[in-house]
């Protein structure tokens, strides 16, 4: 156990958090957030700084993230923004909005035949990568000493980034019709993702989160996950200068859990639509923390009372198993009522005291 505790301490886990992860009597089930869209929208409403400026400015960006921490006192925060950072750095065009995160407009290349035109971007120069790196640096300089927070930088997963570089529809088509060129693209993108992740770690991020929703079984088959996602996620985790990563895949993922947990150096899996009991069973004795899995749509649309009940159900289902933290299944939706987020966190604090 102490080896794993040492491992967690390396990331900045407090003793309280570690006790929570191991379900020690007296400790509380921890709660973490993956949030970007919500934070940026809230910060815009609070300050009037438009979203397109927030996501291009490290100072605003880190403030928008820290704001969530101040408000809700969560233990771990990933600096998730939008999932177009890598594609934009490769040359894709985005729509920038005043109140929400940017969205893809035009992919970097129109066809797989143009792969050779793609140049691996420089994390310190291209797109918004320098902003994300600067945010990690600001966190280290300004906030790290003052808070118990664990700050995770983030990269998109290879499938998610590549599909935005080529356009999702073309990418999906290519998986079937031109797997060799898709592998070539994934290989190139993986190199860029590793450089970007390492630059964030170097700048001050405590850990790295990888957001890979497009590899879920909502989008691609478990066989394709094995062939096209697994090898590159494995390479990323091996080459990042960190002992472990959080991998977030939202959507339907039950059929890929077995593969997912085989990715070396994965220490947190952030899940969405899964059966928690089955998932924890599949993980067995391995040291992998499951983060899950209240739906962000529930948080957006239900009442605080319902949210309390759903959170209580999650807590009761997991019980004293340990290696589990409460977390929304995906990025909090902009406009999620504050009382709903509080209901979720308070339910964790109320019902999540070990032993359950």
């Amino acid at each position, binding site marked *: 156990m102490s080896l794993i505790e040492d491992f967690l301490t390396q990331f900045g886990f407090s003793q309280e958090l570690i006790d929570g992860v191991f379900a020690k009597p007296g400790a509380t089930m921890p709660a973490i957030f993956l949030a970007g*869209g919500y934070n940026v*929208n809230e910060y815009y409403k609070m300050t009037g700084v438009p979203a397109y400026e927030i996501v291009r400015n490290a100072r605003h960006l880190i403030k928008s993230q820290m704001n969530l921490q101040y408000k809700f006192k969560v233990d771990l925060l990933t600096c998730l923004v939008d999932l177009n950072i890598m594609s934009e750095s490769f040359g894709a065009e985005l*729509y920038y*909005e005043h109140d*929400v995160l940017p*969205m*893809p*407009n035009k992919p970097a290349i129109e066809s797989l035949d143009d792969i050779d035109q793609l140049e691996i971007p420089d994390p310190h120069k291209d797109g918004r990568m320098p902003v994300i790196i600067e945010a990690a640096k600001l966190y280290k300089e300004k906030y790290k000493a003052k808070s118990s927070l664990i700050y995770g930088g983030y990269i998109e997963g290879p499938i998610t980034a590549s599909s935005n570089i080529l356009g*999702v*529809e073309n990418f*999906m*088509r290519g*998986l*079937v*019709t031109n797997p060799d060129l898709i592998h070539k693209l994934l290989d190139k993108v993986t190199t860029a993702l590793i450089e970007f992740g390492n630059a964030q770690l170097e700048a001050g991020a405590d850990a790295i989160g990888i957001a890979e929703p497009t590899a879920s*079984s909502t*989008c*691609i*088959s478990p066989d*394709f996950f094995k062939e096209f996602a697994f090898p590159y996620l494995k390479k990323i985790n091996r080459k990042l200068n960190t002992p472990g990563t959080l991998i977030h895949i939202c959507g339907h993922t039950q*059929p890929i859990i077995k593969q997912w947990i085989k990715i070396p150096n994965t220490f947190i899996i952030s899940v969405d639509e899964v059966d928690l009991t089955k998932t924890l069973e599949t993980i067995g004795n391995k040291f992998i923390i499951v983060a899950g899995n209240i739906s*962000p*749509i529930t948080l*957006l*649309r239900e009442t605080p009372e319902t949210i309390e009940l759903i959170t209580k159900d999650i807590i009761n289902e997991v019980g004293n198993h340990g290696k589990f933290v409460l977390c929304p299944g995906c990025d909090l*939706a*902009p*406009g999620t009522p504050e009382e709903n987020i509080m209901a979720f966190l308070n339910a964790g604090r109320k019902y999540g005291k070990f032993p359950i």
Partner: protein
Amino acid sequence: MHNFIIAWDIINKKIKRFNLVGKKMGLIENLKNAVIDGDVDNAARIANEIIDRKMDLKNAILNGLSAGMRVVGKKYEEHEYFIPEVIVSADALNTAFNIIKPHFKDKDTDYKAKVVIGVVKGDIHEIGKNIVAQFLNASGYKVIDLGRNVPPEKFVEAVEKYNADIVAMSTLMTPTLEQMKITIEQLKENGLRNKIKVIIGGAPTDQEFMNEIGADYCCKDANEAVSTLDSIIIKNEVN
């Protein structure tokens, strides 16, 4: 002996005719399978052969393309197919449909109904919408596709311009759900709401949300969209 020869001749002709029918049926079945397999080249070859043989094109569309796409939809529902497989099947369907379409003497009245479809303002995820549009197309609907990031006024404009029967809206994201409500309000303001049916879809939509915004139907996938619209037509809810 003479009688025998005549009888033989008749039998022979019958066999030939049977073979021809069999082969024709086989071609439609092959077209269906080309769609299911997402085999674009084969779908194109078969579609051309169907034209050359002057076969019944309506039959080819309904029992070949549309039937194939229904199987694809079912396989998607049952998690046997995923988005990549559905996209290549839709490619095969589109390729064959575009070959057949110019030969298909369609009048406006040949369509079951006119559908204006689009992804609402603020959202650019259009794979699901494209698949629904293709399913509807292959099932005999006239589809006016407004694309993605479509503002409410564009929906209104298109309903008026094309005298549409149905408005179909989709979004994959939660923040853009509001746009569906705004679109319905604008249809009301322009006096169009009672003339049309509104159908919505996309991951964050459900029956509860449908009721909340005053839409008529909410469908979870392309197959359901087709069967829902077909049921409206049968009930004569659309003129």
